């Protein structure tokens, strides 16, 4: 079943000396349980695409559908119910002054389910003790796993991963990718996995979208 669809999405940024292209006429679909890879050089529009999909910036043209219904123009606060992001900047994904317990449970609307939190932490090999620490006391890998915990705790079935391994060392990258694979199966997640590492994406993803200068390359 088709979970997410974007059609002819275009977002350009006005800039001195002409327009800066974010993405132009980008279309994609994401099937339930699928992992879609998005590859492209730096500046090719990968992050812009994810931000458009998450409703953080509004495209000048195009349409967005979740389960067949348009959600273009909805606020990120609403979109976050079915879709969450994991960012490249692991530590920067958490408020430096907030303990992890509070940051990680922000996605929860209503009561926090302690059992669910424990289960997620266990699956992601995170100690509960880390919940009482602040992000700068955690490693980059731990922060990324916390980021996944936060994304899933709110019940989202779709993850948008924006170069989540780029800032990590090779060993930590592999661990994170393995965990993501496990989580995907265990939680039946659908994932858009953005990376500039074509080999990684081809190994990991069911389909690959190649971006160049904001456009999809066939």
């Amino acid at each position, binding site marked *: 079943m088709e979970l997410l669809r974007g059609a002819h999405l275009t977002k350009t940024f006005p800039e001195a000396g002409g327009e800066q292209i974010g993405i132009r006429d980008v279309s994609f679909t994401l099937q339930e349980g699928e992992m879609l890879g998005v590859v492209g050089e730096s500046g090719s529009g990968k992050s812009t695409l994810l931000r458009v999909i998450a409703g953080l910036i509004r495209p000048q043209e195009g349409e967005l559908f979740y389960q067949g219904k348009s959600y273009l123009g909805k606020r990120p*606060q609403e979109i976050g119910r079915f879709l969450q992001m994991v960012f490249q900047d692991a530590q920067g994904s958490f*408020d430096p002054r907030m303990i992890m317990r509070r940051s990680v449970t922000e996605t929860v609307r209503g009561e926090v389910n302690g059992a669910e939190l424990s289960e997620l932490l266990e699956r992601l090999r995170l100690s509960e003790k880390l919940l009482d620490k602040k992000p700068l006391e955690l490693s980059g890998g731990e922060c990324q796993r916390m980021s996944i915990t936060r994304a899933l705790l709110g019940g989202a079935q779709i993850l948008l991963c924006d170069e989540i391994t780029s800032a990590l060392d090779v060993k930590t990258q592999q661990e994170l990718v393995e965990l993501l694979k496990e989580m995907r199966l265990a939680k039946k997640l659908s994932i858009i996995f953005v990376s500039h590492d074509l080999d990684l994406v081809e190994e990991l993803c069911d389909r690959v979208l190649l971006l160049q200068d904001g456009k999809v390359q066939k």
Partner: protein
Amino acid sequence: MTRKRIWIAFALILVGVALCAGLIAPHDPYETNAALIRLAPCRAYPFGTDQLGRCVFSRVLYGARTTLSAAFFLIAISFVIGCMIGMLCGYFGGIADGILMRIANLFLALPQMVIAIVIAGILGGGLSGALIALGATMWVHFAYQARSHTYMIKQQAYITAARLSGKSSLYICLYHILPNLLLPLATNALTQIGSTIIAISGMSFLGIGVEVPKPEWGAMISEARAYLQLAPWCVLFPALAIILTVITFNELGDLLMEKEA
């Protein structure tokens, strides 16, 4: 570490003196005594007496209260107003930001002394005119700083994460932006204490700050400067008080800045 302790201790002593001036002062700071005019420092009058026979030591102690409380009050109000407006402008941007920042610019262009004189003319002088005049430009500096910090914080991934988590703008401002804003702004506020004390004393010296006979360091120097040669202690001690206080709070500001960096 020791340097830090010394300045913190100094600041605490200054605040303590300001709060307990009434307990420490050996004499009533307003009490004149025709028999004891311009007495040099002695046991009963450690800083001597002025042209009306008032105890300079007691007046310097009470002056700490006048000057410090005025400076703290002014900075606190400017801080709160500037912080709120700057944060809202930085977070929401757009038209409101453009308008508010233009208004702020206007305030910045206002000549402090002229406003102080005008307000003194309308309200009949006193400290309030000086404080309003100084506050009119001070809040703008806090607003600019709050705005630029908010703008930087807003770009952080954790703000995006909070939005996707369903958190409202109010929640994000109160629980993510404000706490991350306070340390840099408080540092700035602390470094402002010194210059604010100079500004308040300066205005009082010019006669548009506190009114006589209220003890205030700048006003005391102003009153006593005519007979500087006859009774230099009347100028020396309030001047030392100003210098010491300004250095103390500047050092504290520097320490906080180092901690932040």
